[in-house]
């Protein structure tokens, strides 16, 4: 098992989910982002709200600019990915909820404010895929630090 170098450790990976409120796939993307940034890799990642980038929030743009970012889009408009690029972020990986669902059809997400169990499971699967990508970027343990 290998670990992040000190230099890599200092570079947190920004995780930017979809901001689509009232959309099931948006909810899955946000839950996945919470699982990554709060449960699996809290010390290696930072959650950045897409809406702050859209609004031109300076601190959000500063956080994104020049740092690796992983986006989780809720639909093919791919707003998170586009916005990270426009904000000068270094796109280290981009995920789409739909792609993950196509590989896990048994996990059909439903609900918006409250996802069904399958939707929550789908978010966890997606979160682990994000962690895999971060692990490949920085050689942190794949299991995550609190997973």
């Amino acid at each position, binding site marked *: 098992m290998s670990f992040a170098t000190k230099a890599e450790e200092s570079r947190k990976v920004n995780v930017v989910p979809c901001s689509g409120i009232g959309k099931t796939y948006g909810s899955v993307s946000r839950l996945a982002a919470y699982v990554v940034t709060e449960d699996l890799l809290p010390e290696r990642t930072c959650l950045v709200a897409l809406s702050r980038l859209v609004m031109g929030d300076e601190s959000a743009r500063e956080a994104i600019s020049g740092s690796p970012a992983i986006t989780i889009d809720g639909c093919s408009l791919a707003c998170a990915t586009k916005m990270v690029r426009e904000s000068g972020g270094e796109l280290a990986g981009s995920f789409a909820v*739909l792609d993950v669902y196509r590989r896990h059809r048994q996990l059909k997400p439903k609900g918006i404010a409250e996802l069904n169990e399958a939707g929550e499971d789908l978010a966890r699967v997606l979160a682990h895929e994000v962690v895999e990508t971060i692990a490949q970027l920085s050689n942190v343990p794949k299991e995550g630090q609190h997973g």
Partner: protein
Amino acid sequence: MPEFLEFTYEKFTIRVAGDCLYSDEGLWVKLEGGKARVGLSDFIQQRNGDVAFVEVKPVGEVLRAGEELAVVETIKVDISLGMPVSGKLLEENPVLEITPETINQDPYGAGWLALIEPSDWQGELAQLMEPQVYFERMKLQVAREME
């Protein structure tokens, strides 16, 4: 008749192909050497969002107009689509099994759904709408839904 009739509402531009006829549900039908190629109109695909899965009835089935031809699962809904005309199912689009999003990308072209051998084309022709009629109806529907 132009190649496409176009209607723009806010950020959405919806196209109606000028060389197809349309069912009530918004399936397009195009006669090709006595066979009817069928697909989802641009309006239907945009309204229902990114396609996750497509399931078309088995090739060889003989179905009456209105009987279920396919179920399309999108990020928003599952849509049951009826046969626009009676006939035998000759082909389903193999591309949709691997890349169902082709429906979103090219609804009147590579994203076609099925090829049918109509059993009573002339008799059922009156059930289908001319492009201009479908175009006007679609505009009314958009206006109603945006109220």
